[in-house]
């Protein structure tokens, strides 16, 4: 009973104040909404300009897309194998030719592919080992808290940045020119990139290492190398290991495509079958590549978790 009249009374009696409050609030709200709207419109305009420019520069026009999309499906149809159920597991005939429609026919070059996949994995292992070794050595001078002096720090840091900055495939292109077609160019290219990428990660791990053991080793009269070997390495080793294994997984992918520029591995064959044939061979190689990458990922995860234990993986 008293509540409603009071509301009415205050509004009627001392008119000005509450009205002002409401008006101020409304004015603020409108201002706020206006600025927000300006920002939204601005963002939208920028976005539209980017979109327009992008479409124009890359000639991504609807009619080109409309032309292209059917062709994509046509292409995928051509790379499908023509398997027949009754001949699926047929071996070779007496004269050594495979029966069309059989798996043997689809994977005629199976052993070639397998050799190349073996080479791809070897490339990845070698490149990971070499790159990790370089990254390990440089990660100490490239860590801000461990570097013996500023110059060493800057030089090693820049070196790692350059190694990481150049895409592997560009490096491979250059190395293929310098030392010829073959897996060696790929190994070196991936190793350099690995050194850069892991070196950065390793040095960040080093920067998070506790300084107490380092102080302890300093106090017994240890050299800089002693401090790294006894105080830092034991702290960072599990992290280094899991980063290196993750990098190995990435490197298997990289070495499977680095052959596009002639740097060895299954990528060289993949490039060849895609560029010269439009038939089931393309899918045959693609399936093998995806399978290899998946299997390696699973194995590497096993090793990683087995070595450092689930609780330490962070």
């Amino acid at each position, binding site marked *: 009973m008293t509540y409603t009249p009071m509301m009415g009374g205050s509004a009627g009696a001392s008119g000005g104040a509450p009205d002002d409050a409401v008006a101020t609030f409304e004015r603020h709200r409108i201002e706020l909404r206006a600025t927000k709207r300006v920002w939204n419109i601005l963002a939208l305009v920028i976005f539209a300009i980017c979109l327009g420019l992008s479409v124009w520069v890359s000639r991504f026009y609807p009619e080109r897309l409309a032309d292209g999309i059917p062709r994509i499906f046509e292409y995928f149809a051509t790379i499908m194998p023509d398997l027949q159920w009754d001949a699926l597991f047929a071996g070779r005939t007496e004269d050594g030719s495979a029966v069309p429609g059989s798996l043997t026919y689809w994977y005629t070059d199976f052993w070639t592919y397998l050799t190349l996949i073996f080479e791809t994995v070897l490339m990845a292992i070698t490149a990971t080992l070499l790159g990790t070794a370089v990254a390990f050595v440089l990660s100490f001078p490239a860590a801000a808290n461990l570097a013996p002096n500023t110059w060493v720090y800057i030089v090693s840091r820049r070196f790692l940045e350059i190694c990481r900055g150049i895409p592997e495939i560009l490096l491979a292109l250059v190395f293929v020119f310098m030392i010829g077609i073959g897996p060696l160019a790929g190994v070196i290219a991936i190793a350099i990139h690995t050194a850069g990428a892991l070196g950065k990660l390793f040095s960040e791990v080093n920067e998070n290492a506790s300084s107490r053991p380092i102080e302890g080793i300093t106090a017994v009269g240890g050299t800089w190398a002693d401090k790294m*070997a006894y105080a830092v390495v034991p702290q960072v080793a599990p992290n280094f290991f899991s980063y290196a294994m993750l990098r190995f997984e990435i490197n298997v992918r990289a070495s499977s495509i680095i052959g596009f520029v002639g740097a060895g591995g299954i990528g060289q064959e993949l490039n060849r079958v895609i560029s010269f044939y439009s038939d089931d061979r393309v899918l045959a190689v693609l399936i093998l590549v995806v399978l290899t990458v998946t299997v390696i990922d699973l194995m590497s995860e096993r090793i990683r978790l087995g070595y450092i234990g689930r609780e330490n993986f962070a």
Partner: protein
Amino acid sequence: MLKLDKLTRRFGDNLAVDNANLDIPDGQMVGIIGRSGAGKSTLLRLLNRLIDPSDGQILFGDADIARLKGKELRAWRSDCAMIFQQFNLVGRLDVITNVMTGRLYDLPAWRAMAQVFTPRERAFAIQALDRLGMAHTALQRAETLSGGQQQRVAIARALAQEPKILLADEPIASLDPMNAKIVMDALRSINREDGITVICNLHTLDTARDYCDRIIGMQDGRIVFDGTPDLLTTQMAREIYGAEAHEAFNEAATSTSLGASSAPVRASA
């Protein structure tokens, strides 16, 4: 004989150690007291050269420790062992390797890098651990030990250095009273039996009175008291500790009981 001559360390405008002059004869057990921030820790770190002095000299024999560089500096650090409040062990290495790091200065570089230790070094490390009653933990990772045990391993590492001087920076500040007593007893036995000079930062007054031959009081970076424990009056101590007096005396009260129980051990020493 360790001699500090006008030793000074500045951090910006702040004088952490201000014109410290001291003569410490060999084989003395010295306690440095003062409230936190008085410069005790800085003084100890200056002696081990974990921090470089801004001014003044540290003389040990004829050598000016304050000017040492490179290999000579490492030689000095190896002669002048240091024990830390937080133990500063390498947690992921096993205890015996932690102790053997005390030998690093004498190791050829390739052996240090490959972590190859001779049977003699291993036996010496085990003996050092055994002296602290820690030999049974030799193969455990240091991080699995309790604080008191880690501090004992740190003392064994210091012993493995065959030091001439042992510096201890608040060695018992992170420990419970029981472990504090074990650690202080160990430091005193090293001082008495091996004749090694021990310089020890202590926060609590009573521990210093119980264990040290000589007490040095610091306040705002300056040495304000230097004498035997019986010369340190309550009035003087209150002045040294200032606002923290209450805390220091309280802790002293709790460790008095321990001090009493340690009396027979002292008699046997």
